[in-house]
């Protein structure tokens, strides 16, 4: 059953060398938990961005905590390129596994369905097929005769994300953000931070149940108020664009990144 723990305890559930799946900005990025995770001294993470990431990935990269990254893009959006990602790729600081958004979803879907691979439309002709030898083009074995790309299952060790609320039984409200469910279904363990724990059972009414990830898929929950800051959380709060721009500017240099990271971690501890 789902445990409700402190943020530090939740972060401690991630161990070095594990694969960690994280959602796209705005979907519910667990930034507070990322700070707590950095504090644990985590290293050698195999990051899986579903299907892209921004500042969260850039922080983990800049702090030297990742061994590899599988993603369709890393970008700070309006604030421009992700500086530590860009620098890290050039330095070969980690293994880069370039992908395309629906291929990440397809890999997770294969894990959700317990099959070793998933076929996916499109992609043929892309150089991604050259740099991803784990992908293949096959002739469809049944049905319409045509060539189709197949990608292997992606089964993350841990999924980590942030949402507005959970109930005491561990049911998590995900609303329309079903990509968070996709993450949880495919992952061996799912860690969720929330703005608040509510007393009502989220599965009780048909209307609210439709937007719920059942506790069956949720291992640990921690409360983290403003837990996605400086990123947006649905209609709860918008992105702190100024803060992200400040990060983008500082992270251009290694020293600037160190200074930002230190202040970010300190800020997080003060909020907690």
């Amino acid at each position, binding site marked *: 059953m789902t445990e409700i723990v402190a943020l530090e305890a939740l972060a401690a559930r991630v161990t070095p060398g594990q694969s960690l799946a994280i*959602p*796209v900005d*705005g*979907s519910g990025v667990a930034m507070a938990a990322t700070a707590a995770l950095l504090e644990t001294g985590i290293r050698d993470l195999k990051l899986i961005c*579903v*299907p*892209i990431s921004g500042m969260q990935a850039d922080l983990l990269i800049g702090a030297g905590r990742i061994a590899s990254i599988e*993603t*369709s*893009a*890393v*970008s700070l*959006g*309006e604030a421009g*390129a*992700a500086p530590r*990602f*860009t620098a890290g*790729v*050039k*330095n*070969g600081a980690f293994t*880069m596994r*370039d*992908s*395309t*958004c*629906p*291929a990440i*979803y397809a890999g997770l*879907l294969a894990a959700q369905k317990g099959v070793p691979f998933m076929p*996916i*439309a*499109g*992609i*043929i*002709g*892309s*150089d*991604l097929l050259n*740099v991803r030898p784990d992908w293949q083009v096959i002739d469809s074995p049944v049905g319409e005769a*045509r*060539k189709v790309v197949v990608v292997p299952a992606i089964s993350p060790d841990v999924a980590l994300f942030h949402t507005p609320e959970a109930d005491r039984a561990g049911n998590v409200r995900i609303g*329309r*953000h*079903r*990509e*968070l*469910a*996709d993450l949880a279904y495919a992952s061996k363990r799912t860690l969720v931070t929330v703005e608040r724990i509510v007393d009502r059972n989220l599965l009780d009414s048909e209307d609210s149940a439709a937007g719920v990830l059942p506790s069956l898929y949720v291992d640990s929950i921690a409360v983290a108020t403003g837990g996605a800051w400086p990123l947006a959380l649905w*209609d709860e709060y918008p992105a702190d664009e100024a803060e992200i721009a400040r990060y983008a500017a500082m992270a251009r240099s290694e020293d600037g990144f160190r200074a930002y990271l230190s202040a970010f971690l300190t800020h997080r501890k003060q909020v907690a």
Partner: protein
Amino acid sequence: MSTERERREILIATIADLLDGIRHVAVGASSPIPAAGAMLLRARNELCGKPPVRISILGSQAHNFFTNGGVELFDCAAQGRVDAFFLGGGQIDGHGNINLVGTGDYPTTSVRWPGSFGSAYLYHLIPRVILFREEHSPRVFVPQVDFVSARAITPEIPRRGGPHALLTNMALFDFDREAGGFSLRSVHPPFTPADIRENTGFAYQEPDVVRETPRPDAATLALLRGRIFDELAETYPAFARTMKQAA
């Protein structure tokens, strides 16, 4: 400032024209000009009693018709339910291939861009992909991209999707899927065909007489500067404000 506004207005009106006839257009995040073009078409169709246009803007709450998570746009495209989409590229070549990954030797590319996003997939599946890249320079428009994020034509397999046109700050090109290349359709004032030749690194077809891209007419401008920028403000407040202020 007024020139900058006019430049954008031509792009928006051109996009609305390029989208004519579609039922559902998807617009990526951070794409105010494509979004404004789509909204202009929607408003115009509504005023003329033409079929309604559905606009999905990724990351928007108000323009979100999806309830199945991040994968739904991709599934929707595979089902043939998305008629038009926009793609850009750090490099775009004369065969219509786009590069969103970087230049130089992969993986330790000399210039690294964010990544391929959904391009490798959507380029195959959406019939009317509009390549939209404001910067018009030989650095962007190259003979051959260093990395093919998404290939424009794959004769070995049937596909419904691919490039329809290329719109830049200077010109509008059509893409010919049979020939596998671009042809210049019109040049935005004040540029000339010679400017285009100078700033395009790939070969393309050029007609004997090159048209000027039409400026939006008065009715279009009124619609744009009123209703469209108001509608746009919900998703792109900063952009809409700038455009309004310039007016």
